[in-house]
């Protein structure tokens, strides 16, 4: 039984102009211990997808249809109280910017205590602080720093604190939304190493959301590529990197410069992501796709399976 | 030619923001509904001499204190005057007072605001001090003080209200001017040798006008309420003129005897008028003065 099962999820943003589908019929499932890399450009819906797993899509966004099941809990339809219990305890969430994600007027210890108290009110404040200290130590931070304020930490350490908070209650699932985007490259590498190590030692199920396809290569078992709210490709990491099927995936991989190749010309994807308020007909990628043909302009491609990889592209869908 | 350019600029400034009001969300709707209400009441008041069934001043056209009936849809008051006619015509005074006070404020407040903030230095300091002092004072109390001294009458009421309200214009204009003064294109104009007067009128003023309009509309609303308040404390006009304020005041005393209609309908009219102006003002404020007054 998968730990997390998302089926045909549709998340809409109701704006004055139109109803924008930030997530359009995306289906995913996660087995325990698995790591999924969720990749895509800014605005492709991956963050929205992540937030929907704990029902935190900000207004004017709303989950319009579909199913999300975590273990035995129906995320979309369960009560407010139930979803609150899921958050933090069964699903840990790491946000992009650790600077703004921590309450600036609260000490780190207070963050831990508040969180632990919310889910396990019997725990004494002392015990809660102790647990916090243990977590910090595990993440390579001096335990005495539990009394410090967020602004007293550097960016990388703040992110570790966030990871610590996310993992403090031993959740089954960890979702990291662009955890390294606001950090410099060296710190980024450290954090990724940390995540890998935690993944192994805690047997975490991890969803890593990022636009940096590079870090996904070494951490994820499977990779899902999203474009304009829809799944373009979903497959094993190795398969995807060696033989990318969807033209978008190919273009993405091509645009990563290879430092070993000499005299390489930077390539990029021409055009821009579609305006979701007035999406183009057919395949959303067709205006930028070098392989687009007639069918692409009229019919939306559905996700089909080829050799273990799911692709949404008419090139592979000979029907 | 200068005037045309100025007008052109005003139109260019105001129109784009006023277009597609319906699409502007709540603010747009507020303006439309508010304007509709105000327009309807203005038309009603202006047309009242023709549409009213009785002369509102004539006493004993009907039985004293009779409740709403077919003949007198809004009932009659203690003098036997027809309430419907009084309601139709009662807005005249309020409109007059409101319009007059706005005019005075514009004539007095706008120039002071423009010059003081543009010139800066002592002028600005002194003007700000005076304006802030008046602004801090409880409006109605000040209006009462002035009205008490000046005596009854439309003009005096308007003056009292105007004095209380000029600081609001001053403040908005001042904050706008201070911001615009620093903008690069104004500096550029000065460097290119434009005279101060030119800069002020052709560059700064058109940009300030939208905010002035917003303040003026809210001024209307406050004028309506304040004039009602002034009448309530006895500083209004001679009894004979039909006025919602008067009906409100007198209607109070008639309440214990159960004659609710004397106070209710004029009261409703005042509320509606104030509401109409307020909605317009709030909507305009949201469009033109982002976060300035709030």
């Amino acid at each position, binding site marked *: 039984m998968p730990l997390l099962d998302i089926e045909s999820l549709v998340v809409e943003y109701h704006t004055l102009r139109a109803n924008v589908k930030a997530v359009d019929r995306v289906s995913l499932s996660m087995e325990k211990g698995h790591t999924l890399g969720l990749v895509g450009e800014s605005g492709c819906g991956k963050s929205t997808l992540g937030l929907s797993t704990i029902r935190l899509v900000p207004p004017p966004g709303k989950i319009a249809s579909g199913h999300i099941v975590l273990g035995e809990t129906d995320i979309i339809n369960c009560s407010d109280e139930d979803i609150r219990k899921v958050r933090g305890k069964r699903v840990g969430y790491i946000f992009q910017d650790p600077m703004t*994600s921590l309450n600036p007027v609260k000490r780190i210890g207070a963050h831990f205590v508040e969180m632990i108290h919310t889910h396990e009110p019997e725990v004494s404040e002392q015990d809660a602080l102790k647990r916090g200290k243990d977590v910090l130590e595990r993440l390579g931070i001096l335990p005495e720093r539990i009394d410090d304020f967020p602004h007293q930490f550097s960016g990388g350490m703040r992110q570790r604190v966030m990871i610590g908070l996310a993992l403090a209650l031993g959740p089954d699932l960890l979702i990291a939304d662009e955890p390294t985007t606001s950090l410099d490259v060296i710190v980024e590498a450290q954090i990724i190493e940390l995540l890998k190590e935690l993944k192994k030692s805690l047997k975490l199920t991890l969803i890593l959301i990022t636009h940096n396809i590079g870090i996904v290569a070494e951490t994820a078992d499977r990779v899902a590529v999203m474009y304009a709210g829809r799944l373009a490709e979903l497959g094993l990491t190795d398969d995807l990197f060696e033989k990318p099927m969807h033209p978008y995936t190919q273009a993405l991989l091509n645009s990563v410069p290879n430092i070993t190749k000499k005299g390489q010309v930077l390539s990029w994807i021409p055009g821009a992501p579609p305006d979701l308020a007035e999406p183009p007909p057919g395949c959303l990628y067709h205006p930028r796709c070098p392989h687009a043909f007639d069918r692409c302009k009229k019919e939306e491609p559905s996700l089909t399976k080829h050799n273990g990889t799911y692709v949404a592209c008419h090139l592979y869908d000979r029907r | 030619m200068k005037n045309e350019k100025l007008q052109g600029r005003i139109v260019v400034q105001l129109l784009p923001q006023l277009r597609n009001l319906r699409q502007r969300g709540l603010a747009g709707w507020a303006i439309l509904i508010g304007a509709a209400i105000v327009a309807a009441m203005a038309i009603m008041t202006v047309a009242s001499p023709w549409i009213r069934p009785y002369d509102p001043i004539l006493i004993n056209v009907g039985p004293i204190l009779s409740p709403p009936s077919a003949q007198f849809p809004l009932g009659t008051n203690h003098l036997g005057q027809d309430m419907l006619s009084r309601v139709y015509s009662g807005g005249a005074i309020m409109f007059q007072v409101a319009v007059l006070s706005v005019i005075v404020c514009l004539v007095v407040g706008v120039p002071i605001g423009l010059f003081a903030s543009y010139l800066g230095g002592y002028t600005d300091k002194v003007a700000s001090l005076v304006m802030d002092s008046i602004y801090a004072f409880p409006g109605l109390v000040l209006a009462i003080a002035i009205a008490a001294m000046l005596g009854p009458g439309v003009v005096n009421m308007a003056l009292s209200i105007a004095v209380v309200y000029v600081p609001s214009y001053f403040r908005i204009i001042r904050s706008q001017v201070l911001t615009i003064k620093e903008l690069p294109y104004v500096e550029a104009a000065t460097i290119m040798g434009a005279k101060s007067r030119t800069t002020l009128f052709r560059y700064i003023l058109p940009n300030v006008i939208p905010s002035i309009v917003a303040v003026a509309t809210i001024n209307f609303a406050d004028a309506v309420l304040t004039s009602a308040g002034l009448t309530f404390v006895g500083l209004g006009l001679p009894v004979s003129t039909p006025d919602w304020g008067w009906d409100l005041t007198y209607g109070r005393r008639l309440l214990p005897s159960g004659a609710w209609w004397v106070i209710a309908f004029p009261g409703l009219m005042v509320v509606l008028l104030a509401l109409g102006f307020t909605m317009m003002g709030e909507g305009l404020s949201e469009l033109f003065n982002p976060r300035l007054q709030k």
Partner: protein
Amino acid sequence: MIMLLLTFVFLVVRVLPGDPASLHFEKQVSPEMLLDFKRRLGLDKPLIVQYFEYLVGLLRGDFGKSMQDFSPVSQQIFSAFPATLELAIFSSIIMVLVGVVLGVQASRSYNSARDHSIRVFGIASYAIPVFFLGEVVIMIFAIYFHLFPAGDRIYPGMAPTGLTIGGLHWSSGLFVLDSILEGNPTKLGVSLRYLFLPSLTLGTVLCGIFIRLTRGNMLETLQLDFVTAARARGIKETTVVYGYALRNAFLPILTMMGLQFAALLAGAVLTETTFSWPGLGRYLVDRISFRDYTAIQGVVVFFGILVAMVSLAVDIIYAYLDPRIRF
């Protein structure tokens, strides 16, 4: 600034109409009587002298003499002041309570029907003349339902006497406080009952701006990252809303309360008249009908001083509480 205010008021009352003394009399009065009248009030002296006497008098707490009976206006002012103060305090409580609660509710259901209706209510409540609302409220609650009294502050014999230690008496003039000090729950109940309707009316008319302030502040704060992050940790919604977000709004609300004080006083004038509440406002209106211009001046000056004191206090409190200034 206060000087300016005082001078302004002086000018208004003494200079504007030309001669407040003759204005006072409806009928023609013989010149000798007029002169005598003026002399007794100090109105016959040259304007500059009058101005100085006025300022000096204020320092001593002398607000002039009433034209009606030459009694010191300050006596009346200080005896009527506690009533207005009590009304102002309780109206503020209602104003802030209703405003903040509604503002929070509106921000939590952003763009919903509830949000819009609360916002409309906020605007509409200000558009209602306070005396009209007062009458409506009286009609409904006092006359129709007999739940609350229709006017006055207390009925005879029920005025609380305040603190009594040994033979010493002290009362603040604030009935609620005095009845607590006296230890008399019945009087407390009665005082509150009389206080309720006028405070409700005045508070409602002025709460609109608090609704808007709270709503705006909450909307901004609730979107911040650390709020979402807190929610993601499973923190209870009520804790998030009231503990995190509302804390931010606290300071602006406090400042706004100070700013609204002037409006409170203005509204009090009308409210007191409507509810026959024996405070400064009603005194002012009374004096108008008697054309007691010196008394009017005294009261208006007192209002000015009050407002100035309150804004000074707000400035001090603000400087003390603003974390940016402290840390």
